[in-house]
């Protein structure tokens, strides 16, 4: 069979336009090896060629920020000479092809970003999104991904303390696996991913280089899925958490002993990325001796060695006099270690075969295989101004304060609020995540004050009174309706989840999961999301310190709901002052802080009720900031016994969760203005529930008035029945006028609620519990 030969650059995923741009930078045509290096470095995954102009608009500075976007991970000061490093990253396509290894190496990759900064990884959070849980393929993916995250994290000894699990049909062909990692580093030991000092040695340590993960960045991560997915399996890397554990300990020993001047992990695009990025950041060059790179197998072609994504490898830039010390550390941890090149002053990444002399010059007879300016591969990579266009049928978001007509609301006919609540608590997206997090070691390192399952994770910082609070949140449901609002809501919810413990949000890391950027509608979604992300972070006074963009999240015939995954890390100065979300004592007063708003679009209720074309509730960022300020002040003043934000499932679900977690229900009265479903299950942002001793209510009301936040007494805790009465004008009237029959109250046994909540996920996954 003879087919027309495809030019090499196209076979490698480069366009004709990109080939021209490469030739312009080199002043000549690239040879095949150079072309392969460009193909991985200019992939969307490595170059951010579509998103870079957007990301420049984000607020990244702040007094605490030590390292921001562009480093392996963002780093912020927390006082006492310590700093926290954190970042979130995607491993979506590898997980779709091979769920266990895809997820496992996703954990491994983000951990390396953290310890490459010199930080000891202390926590992982995994944000997972899948299609219909009833689909056998979804179950296969869920089982594999959860086992992969656990298999890797459990072995390396980093606790998985939180995350998300969301089911939405749009992820059926393209699941999302976003993993966030957090580390602690001494400020004076923060390591940069740079290669300063011509003459310094480039040391590769960790696993040997094999043929796994060839072209992962370009083939898998930067193209949409076709029908030939299984053929991409060789592009998925294979993880070895035991090697990673050794790599962590060896790297931290190298850092603590001051043996390296720069460290970079090798992930996407392998050695090519590691040497070009470190050189470019330092304004230097690197010459690589191909023969010095330890290999797993003979017969590897030069391009395979240079772009292999074999896992658990690091590059350290080492002064010649420290070479023996680094070798000794690696030997102690049983890790192969080799000097593979030298830092040069010429600004080029040069690859030779045949060896280097003691000064880093090619030996006589050595052959130069490639020479490319480091900047051309990285900071001077091609950038595209993509076309953006909103979808044709997009409806405008309602202006704040405008009350929609009842006709726009979702049908409430026959709604029994108690039955809806039980249905929501048992629904796959709201039910207990125990089935997942019991497979994750969430205690190792003995810092976990609050682990997965209920709100943000809390980790004490050993040797201090401080605690770090971490969460991930992403609102794909609203993003599908309005990507700007969805991204801003995700930031609002993630920061609120931190503030509601009493901690102060420090910084945001983000993983933007969107579609094919060459499709104007998908690029418009990305552009709107970045605008929403930036606006929300500016309004809340919190920097974006890093993140990751994952594009081409499309399976044949369907794109995912645009998904802005937001990770937030917060800081509390006194861990004992933080509060949790579970009801504690009986006869505590429960107060609702914040503002009601209409709109059921994108809500869990809308999912349950079968959709509708209602708008999502609007977000007022000034109100959000005021609410979070009140939460931190009230908790800091010791006035709050328990607190929880009102989010997915609305007020009724938030109350039920606090009751289930505390083993104590209560009697509540909820004012209904117009539509009971909005009052009980609406997901208006900028709201939180507070439980307080009766004598704290008066000072709380005064504090709320100071912050300009409405605060209403809605009932008291006690007993084992959850009773929620609907009161006020229009409790049932508005619905009755439309021919609806509405129950007046929720009155349910706490045990029944807990049963629904605990059984929901195993049942949805077909009895996998």
């Amino acid at each position, binding site marked *: 069979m003879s087919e027309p030969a495809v030019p090499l650059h196209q076979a490698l995923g480069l366009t004709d336009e990109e080939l021209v741009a490469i030739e312009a930078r080199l002043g000549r045509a690239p040879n095949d090896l150079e072309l392969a290096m460009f193909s991985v470095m200019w992939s969307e995954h490595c170059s951010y060629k579509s998103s870079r102009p957007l990301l420049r608009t984000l607020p990244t500075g702040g007094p605490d920020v030590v390292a921001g976007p562009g480093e392996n991970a963002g780093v912020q000061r927390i006082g006492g000479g310590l700093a926290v490093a954190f970042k979130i990253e995607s491993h979506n396509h590898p997980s779709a092809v091979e769920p266990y290894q895809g997820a496992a190496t996703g954990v491994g990759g983000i951990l390396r970003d953290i310890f490459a900064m010199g930080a000891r990884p202390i926590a992982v959070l995994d944000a997972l999104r899948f299609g219909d849980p009833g689909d056998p393929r979804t179950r296969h993916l869920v089982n594999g991904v959860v*086992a992969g995250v*656990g*298999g890797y994290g*459990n*072995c*390396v*000894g980093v606790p998985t303390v939180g995350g998300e699990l969301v089911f939405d049909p749009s992820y059926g062909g393209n699941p999302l696996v976003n993993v966030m990692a957090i580390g602690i580093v001494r400020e004076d030991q923060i390591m940069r991913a740079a290669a300063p000092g011509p003459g310094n040695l480039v040391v590769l340590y960790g696993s040997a280089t094999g043929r796994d993960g060839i072209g992962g960045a370009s083939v898998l991560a930067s193209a949409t899925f076709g029908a030939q997915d299984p053929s991409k399996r060789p592009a998925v890397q294979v993880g*070895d*958490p*035991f*090697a990673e*554990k*050794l790599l962590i300990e060896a790297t931290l020993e190298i850092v603590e002993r001051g043996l390296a001047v720069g460290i970079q992990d090798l992930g996407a695009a392998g050695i090519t990325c590691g040497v070009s990025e470190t050189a470019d950041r330092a304004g230097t060059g690197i010459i690589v001796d191909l023969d010095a790179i330890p290999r797993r197998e003979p017969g590897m072609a030069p391009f395979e060695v240079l772009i292999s994504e074999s896992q658990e490898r690091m590059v350290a830039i080492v002064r010649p006099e420290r070479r023996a010390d680094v070798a000794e550390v690696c030997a102690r*941890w*049983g890790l192969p270690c080799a000097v593979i090149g030298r830092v040069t002053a010429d600004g080029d990444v040069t690859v030779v075969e045949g060896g280097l002399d003691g000064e880093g010059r090619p030996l006589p007879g050595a052959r130069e295989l490639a020479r490319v300016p480091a900047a051309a591969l990285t900071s001077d990579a091609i950038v595209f101004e993509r076309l953006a266009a909103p979808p044709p049928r997009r409806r405008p978001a309602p202006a704040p304060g405008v009350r929609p007509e009842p006709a726009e609301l979702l049908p409430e006919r026959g709604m029994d609020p108690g039955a809806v609540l039980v249905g929501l608590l048992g629904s796959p997206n709201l039910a207990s995540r125990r089935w997942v*997090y*019991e*497979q*994750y*070691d*969430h*205690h*190792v*390192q*003995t*810092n*976990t*004050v609050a682990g997965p399952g209920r709100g943000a994770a809390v980790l*004490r910082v*050993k040797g201090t009174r401080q605690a770090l609070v971490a969460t991930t949140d992403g609102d794909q449901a609203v993003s599908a309706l309005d990507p700007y609002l969805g991204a801003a809501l995700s930031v609002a919810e993630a920061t609120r989840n931190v503030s509601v413990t009493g901690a102060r949000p420090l910084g945001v890391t983000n993983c933007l999961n969107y579609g094919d950027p060459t499709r104007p509608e998908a690029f418009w979604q990305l552009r709107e999301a970045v605008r929403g992300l930036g606006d929300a972070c500016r309004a809340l006074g919190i920097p974006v310190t890093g993140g990751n963009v994952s594009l081409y999240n499309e399976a044949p015939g369907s794109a995912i709901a645009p998904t802005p995954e937001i990770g937030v890390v917060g800081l509390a100065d006194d*861990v*004992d002052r933080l509060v949790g979300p579970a009801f504690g004592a009986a006869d505590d007063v429960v107060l609702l802080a914040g503002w009601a708003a209409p709109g059921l679009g994108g809500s869990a209720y809308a999912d349950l009720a079968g959709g509708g074309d209602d708008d999502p509730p609007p977000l007022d960022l000034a109100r959000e900031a005021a609410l979070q300020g009140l939460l931190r002040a009230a908790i800091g003043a010791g006035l709050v016994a328990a607190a929880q934000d009102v989010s997915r499932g609305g007020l009724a679900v938030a109350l039920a969760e606090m009751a289930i977690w505390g083993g104590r229900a209560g009697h509540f009265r909820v004012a209904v203005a117009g539509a009971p479903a909005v009052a009980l299950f609406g997901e208006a942002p900028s709201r939180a529930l507070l439980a307080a001793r009766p004598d704290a209510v008066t000072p709380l009301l005064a504090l709320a008035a100071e912050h300009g936040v409405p605060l209403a007494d809605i009932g008291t805790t006690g007993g084992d029945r959850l009773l929620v009465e609907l009161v006020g004008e229009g409790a049932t009237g508005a619905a009755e006028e439309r021919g609806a029959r509405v129950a007046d109250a929720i009155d349910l046994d706490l045990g029944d609620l807990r049963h629904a909540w605990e059984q929901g996920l195993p049942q949805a996954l077909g009895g996998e519990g």
Partner: protein
Amino acid sequence: MSVRVGVVVFPGSNCDRDTAWALGLAGAEPVELWHESADLGGVAAIVLPGGFAYGDYLRAGVIARFSPVMRAVAGFAAAGGLVLGICNGFQVLAEAGLVPGALLRNRGLRFVCREVAIAPERLDTPFTRLVGERRPLRMPVAHGEGAYYADPATLAALERDGRVLFRYVAPDGTPALDPDDRANPNGSLRGIAGVTNAAGNVAGLMPHPERAAEALLGSADGLPILRSLVAAAGERAAGAFVVTGRRVLAGDGGVEGGRR
């Protein structure tokens, strides 16, 4: 003088730092024992911590038992030294034959990490003497291979000789003898969470007492177990001093007390 307790570090150990931290809270001076060295540094007791020694790819603990440090630990145990293996440490002890039985894959074939309750069967061992009373102790388990198994004759001997150290129990203290009991997290036979060797100086325990050493983290119920070990080790160290010092001190019975 604080008691020096060794914590073995295999490549892949990941609870070594936690264990050292908790031993510090229990009043000991933790000492790292590197897997390649047979020098135990004169410690008074040894803890084998949790983790995935050598990756545990073949079977938990199966490679660790051949390490130089384990030859030294076996000698230490044979001489009556106190050894506690926690989680992966228990698996290593079982593979090395220093405690009876084996740890099989969990009943559900999945890793399980959750808080369980265990109760001591005896209060007069070096590992439980400061627990005070037979009561449920809350602490986490985190393992994929934790289902205790031994053949019927061994099980009968363990029960007869009082060598079952801890059993999984329901919150009210009822032993979870049935492998399918919800309070039995991994399907262990007779609800066994921990055992000792015949001499009573070597113990293996699947749950993690070092993760339950501070109320801030949810439970301090594990601390009395570590304190028991430290106290017993301290007495043995002092006893050794008495034995060697007897020539000088003429067997004065008060000396041992004076050392404490």
